[in-house]
């Protein structure tokens, strides 16, 4: 009877509030608490997401959580999400094995608009799981390397063990004329790389601040510090983009949980320019 119920589901659910069924086709354990899931549609797929957009992933019987896209079907052939287990739903997502089904709504929000950086230098700064939404940006820039100026990729992580995509980072390092630097907050035995906050990597970059488009993603405090430093170095604030994280629930500008001043971050973001974000993130509690 279960099969009858399944065939009764419409090919493409109506409206953005109804999840589309997807199946996990691959699961890669990135770190002790993070996995990357590759998804293929069971029903008609969602629209192809842009780098920087997010979807709502629904673990049946558990709940729904917003997760940025870490690989786009147009480039990867599958929809990819990197998930860190920090709560009940994300833990359930991380436990999904190939063959498991889940629901997907989206894609939602404003992406990174990578093509607008063509012709300029590109600076990508990622902290922690913030590397996941930037991975499609990096892949797009490196795939079209000739369309961009100098490229710098700076990655911060808590410890060496917490670094995402370690094998892929080595591939990025191997691309000629791409500056890749990693730093960790705390070294472990055997680590020979940088130790310190990610802002320390902003010194001595090959990119020229005045002709740089920057993509920054990580904890909000980190993004504030990094974006401020990039702008102070001479970059145009409108070309410094950050990805905001808020309490996305409906993801369609209805519930208001994600409001930040005049912004519904689910729809007006998550990617916003520093011009727009600086004032909003400076508002404190009184």
């Amino acid at each position, binding site marked *: 009877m279960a099969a009858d119920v399944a065939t009764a589901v419409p090919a493409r659910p109506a409206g953005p509030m109804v999840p589309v069924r997807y199946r996990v086709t691959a699961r890669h354990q990135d770190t002790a608490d993070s996995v990357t899931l590759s998804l293929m549609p069971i029903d008609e797929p969602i629209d192809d997401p842009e780098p920087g957009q997010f979807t709502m992933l629904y673990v049946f019987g558990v709940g729904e*959580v917003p997760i940025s896209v870490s690989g786009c079907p147009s480039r990867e052939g599958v929809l990819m999400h990197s998930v860190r287990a920090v709560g009940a739903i994300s833990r359930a997502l991380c436990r999904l094995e190939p063959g498991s089904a889940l629901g997907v709504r989206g894609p939602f929000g404003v992406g990174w608009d990578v093509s607008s950086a063509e012709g300029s230098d590109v600076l990508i700064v990622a*902290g922690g*799981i913030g590397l996941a939404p930037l991975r499609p940006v990096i892949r797009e820039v490196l795939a079209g390397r000739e369309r961009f100026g100098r490229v710098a990729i700076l990655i911060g992580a*808590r410890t060496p063990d917490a670094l995402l995509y370690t094998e892929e980072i080595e591939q990025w390092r191997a691309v000629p004329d791409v500056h890749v630097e990693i730093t960790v907050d705390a070294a472990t035995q055997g680590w020979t790389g940088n130790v310190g906050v990610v802002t320390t990597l902003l010194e001595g970059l090959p990119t020229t601040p005045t002709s740089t488009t920057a993509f920054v993603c990580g904890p909000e405090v980190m993004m504030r510090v990094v974006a401020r430093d990039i702008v102070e170095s001479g970059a145009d604030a409108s070309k410094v983009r950050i990805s905001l994280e808020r309490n996305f629930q409906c993801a369609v500008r209805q519930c208001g949980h994600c409001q930040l001043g005049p912004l519904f971050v689910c729809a007006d973001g998550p990617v916003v320019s520093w011009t727009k974000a600086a004032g909003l993130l400076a508002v404190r509690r009184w």
Partner: protein
Amino acid sequence: MNLTSIRDLLAAQPVLLDLEPADIDLMAGCAHNQVFEPGTFLAHEDEPANHFYVLREGKVAIELHSATGPLLIETIGSGDLVGWSWLFPPNRWAFDVEAVATTKAIVIDAWCLRDKCETDPAFGYRVMKRFAQVMVDRLQMTRLRLLDLYGAGNGR
């Protein structure tokens, strides 16, 4: 062969840009160049802090030794200052400093510079302000690391 003077090398360091030309002249009188190969030490914990360094190229690690091996606290790269123990009693290094890449450094003799700071308090004040800025920057970065920003957050 085109040799750059130690004075010009110092003047080109971003970390010293807000010092006046005359200050750079004074500092250059106490300076020499040195190259440290990976694995060699610029300083050892608890030894007299008779020098500080301006890193021109390379990278050094600030470390504490322990029974299980060195504990890596922070790395410092080109363009930055290493060492402020020379400024304050008891003028001993608080940590080990090890070159982790081939490192070209300008070595400043602390005795020489301290004498010039004492003789010319205005110069000494400008040097102190420069070092205070470096210390504030490091303190702020340390505070950010203490926040464990990448650690487990409140998520769903």
